[in-house]
């Protein structure tokens, strides 16, 4: 970490987005994570994504659990309300917050210990409920804050810094999310910002449960030879199936499928993501073949990145609840309290 405070003065020529905000308006205080931590690259990608999407920072609610990853919401979107909750329970807090105010944009930040170990239950249920959010897992396969224990996403046979070997099967959060009904499932690599920023932008624009699993090497405890979550390993075994371009709705969408390995997925708000296929055979809208592909590559020891599955027609939790359009936290007394006449009727029915 660095002890230098960020300069408060902005260069007048800093680029501004459609709302007139500069990138600085999406930043937070300086990170206290280790120098070179993959998580800081993810924070930078989040800042970039929200800046480019021109989302008012105060309309975002960022929530996290406990762990290195869960500390990061402090370091981006400083004008957003944040909630660093309890270990493994961010999904329930985010679900409740989302129910209270459907108008905000919800960003959940978690890690592999937080989501795959202590929080696996809540991870599963937030996906199956279709909560409208972007859930980012900063996945390094290790417990950093307690100094290097394996997490449940550590690959079988991978070595800890202390020299121990992990003998348990790994939990693949991406595969799990697909089976549980998440409607936008992607995997990125903290070392590849060019791929990660569009993935985050598309996830934010997606309506429903969107998860971006980001492999994020831990420079302190999981970046050594023998680790399958190190920079070197991921770079050598990355199988990128596609790249994304996010197009806001103001750009005309010509065709659903374009030549040259480009597939267009129309989002609920009229915008679209353009999927530039690297692997021609990979269709992220086909759940069954996507799962078969993911499993085959995993067997081969590869890390598949890109947009892995998307289903843009699903409804979110508020649709299932049939809630009113006004946020529940903004309803007036008159809309909430049935009054004494209604109470008299209840009384009469109980005599």
């Amino acid at each position, binding site marked *: 970490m660095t002890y230098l405070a960020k300069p408060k003065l902005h260069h007048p020529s800093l680029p501004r987005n459609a709302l007139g905000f500069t990138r600085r308006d999406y930043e937070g205080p300086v990170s206290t994570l280790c120098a070179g931590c993959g998580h800081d690259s993810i924070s930078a990608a989040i800042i970039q994504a929200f800046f480019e999407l021109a989302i008012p920072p105060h309309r975002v609610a960022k929530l996290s659990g406990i762990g290195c990853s869960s500390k990061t919401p402090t370091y981006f979107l400083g004008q957003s309300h944040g909630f660093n909750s309890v270990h493994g*329970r961010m999904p329930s807090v*985010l679900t409740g917050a989302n129910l209270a*105010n459907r108008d905000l944009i919800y960003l959940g930040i978690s890690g592999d210990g937080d989501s795959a170990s202590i929080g696996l239950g809540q991870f599963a249920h937030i996906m199956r409920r279709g909560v409208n959010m972007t859930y980012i897992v900063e996945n390094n396969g290790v417990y950093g804050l307690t100094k290097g224990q394996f997490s449940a996403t550590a690959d079988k046979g991978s070595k800890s810094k202390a020299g121990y070997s992990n003998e348990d099967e790994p939990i693949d959060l991406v595969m799990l999310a697909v089976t549980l009904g998440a409607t936008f499932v992607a995997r990125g690599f903290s070392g590849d910002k060019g791929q990660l920023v569009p993935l985050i932008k598309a996830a934010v624009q997606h309506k429903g449960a969107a998860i971006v699993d980001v492999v994020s090497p831990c420079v302190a405890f999981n970046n050594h030879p023998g680790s399958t979550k190190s920079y070197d390993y991921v770079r050598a075994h990355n199988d990128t199936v596609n790249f994304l371009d996010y197009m806001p709705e103001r750009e005309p969408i010509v065709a659903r499928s374009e030549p040259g390995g480009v597939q267009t997925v129309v989002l609920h708000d009229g915008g679209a993501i353009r999927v530039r296929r690297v692997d021609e055979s990979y269709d992220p809208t086909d759940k069954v073949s996507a799962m078969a592909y993911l499993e085959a590559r995993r067997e081969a020891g590869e890390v598949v990145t890109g947009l892995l599955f998307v289903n843009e027609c699903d409804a979110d939790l508020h649709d299932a609840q049939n809630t009113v359009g006004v946020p529940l936290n903004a309803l007036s007394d008159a809309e909430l309290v049935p009054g004494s006449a209604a109470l008299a009727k209840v009384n009469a029915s109980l005599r």
Partner: protein
Amino acid sequence: MPAMRPLERLNDFVVKFANVNGSGSASANGLFARSALRMGVPVAARNIFPSNIQGMPTWYEVRVVESGWRGRRGGVDLAVAMNPETWAADVAELESGGYLLYDATRPVNAAKLREDIVPLGIPLTGLCHEMFSDPRQRQLFKNVMYVGALAALLRIEPEVIEKLLGEQYAGERKAPLLDANRAAFRRGYDFATAELPQIGLRMERRDRVGDRIFVDGNSASALGAVYGGATVCAWYPITPSTSLAEAFKRYCSRMRVDPATGRHRYAIVQAEDELASIGMVVGAGWNGARAFTATSGPGISLMQEFIGLAYFAEIPAVLFDVQRGSPSTGMPTKTQQADVLCAAYASHGDTKHVLLFPEDPTECFAMGAQAFDLADRLQTPVFVMLDLDIGMQDWLTAPFAWDEGRALDRGKVMTAEELEAGRDFGRYLDVDGDGVPYRTYPGTHAKRGAYFTRGTSKDRYARYTEDGPAYVDNMQRLLRKFETAKDLVPQPAIEGAAQPTRAGVLWYGSTGAPMAEALAALEARGIHLDRCRVRAFPFADAVADFVAAHDHVFVVEQNRDAQMRALLVNECGIAPEKLVPVLHYDGAPLTARFVEREIAEKAAVFNVVPLKRAAG
């Protein structure tokens, strides 16, 4: 051989129905209780049931009580013995001279009866076989048939019950059911009139019910949550709290639907467990919605970590704890007040929580609504402490009331306008000296008022710090806030005895049901006690003053370890020997007989009885 003297009682007797769980008896038994109310005679009714869906014994006890006492009396005057499995116990429980109504389709061995009771046999199975061909109906209509027989025996006006049936099976769709029920009821009534002897128990029309309603505390609490402005309910099924969340759904579907669009002004999530329930409540509360969960002791145990977070991060939350027999799975379908300490100090570290103790469904409604104002005003979890006896039993209770001019109190929430005007915002800054800071809802203002909520220690401006003095400063402010709560929570109900006395009695929650009756009986024995009913924690100063003003105070409660007494000793600095525990914790609702006996025995030791009377 005991002399046979059949009981003679008017509007003051106990009828106990012994049934098999899942046999459809609940509706018929409820019909019987309501018929008394429609005759203007109060009842105290209790369902005694196992943790089982079908096949186990279940009982329904109705105390017809013109004087209006609310508790169980103890003993049974008329048993309706419909369960062969519990026959021996049901017969044994009858008072001498009591009556036994039973299915006489097959002859009953005289050895299975008692000579000091009056057997009343009616061939229910046989009659139902004659009337119905469907096996399910043959079983089901035995229930309403014995209600018919009871109406004849006890001289309940049959028109009253027929009217109740008409209300229950209103509408064209239910017309065939109504006809069948009426026919079975009439068959039982006619058989008893023609074939059974007249008995000494009698119901006679009175006007002692007034405008009171007959309702359970879980429904009342749920209705209170609707009136308290709750919009988010997250819960996990657990006996005996389940019907609270279900009632909230029922009331919301009638009272909280936007008439123009049909869409809901509420959200209800059945969570995957209690951890997720309270997590959702905390998330919604943080985001400015009024949110609650309903649970019981095991759920409170699971929620501990989140409760500590909500206390420390100061997030409003309402928890309805419908207490049951504990610890562990304990006795899920029996009543206790055994979560008092667990709730008062829930979570690790130094915590204290606001608890409300409703004494009946009327207070469940009032406190159920008030809990949301308190949670917002104090920015902290608020527990409404019901128990199975209040939550799941129907009580005859004062009607629900709502002041039309009452506005929901959202507490200290800084608005966009105030932030825009440059008002200083420190999330944990004690601006008013009452320990309660201001908060902002997420998304309020583009540049001001955002803060980071965390379970870690922080300074007055919500910035992370591990600085000792800043931590202590915050913890002390939380204590000041708890002091502020003292004046905001429901105040104790204190009442003097008929004669000046140096002894008092203190109780809370459902323990109040038999207290009036027990105290009247004690008074008749010359034992006078001043009364203090605790309605909330933190304790108002009046509670400590009450204890200070007496030599001894009996603390009546339904747990083994005298938890309220421990809380009083701990929080009010009371000398433990002043507080005399009176404890009942076998899972059955408290009876006046028990309270009277226990206090009388203990009072003798403490010379509570005036000396001249004791000497005489």
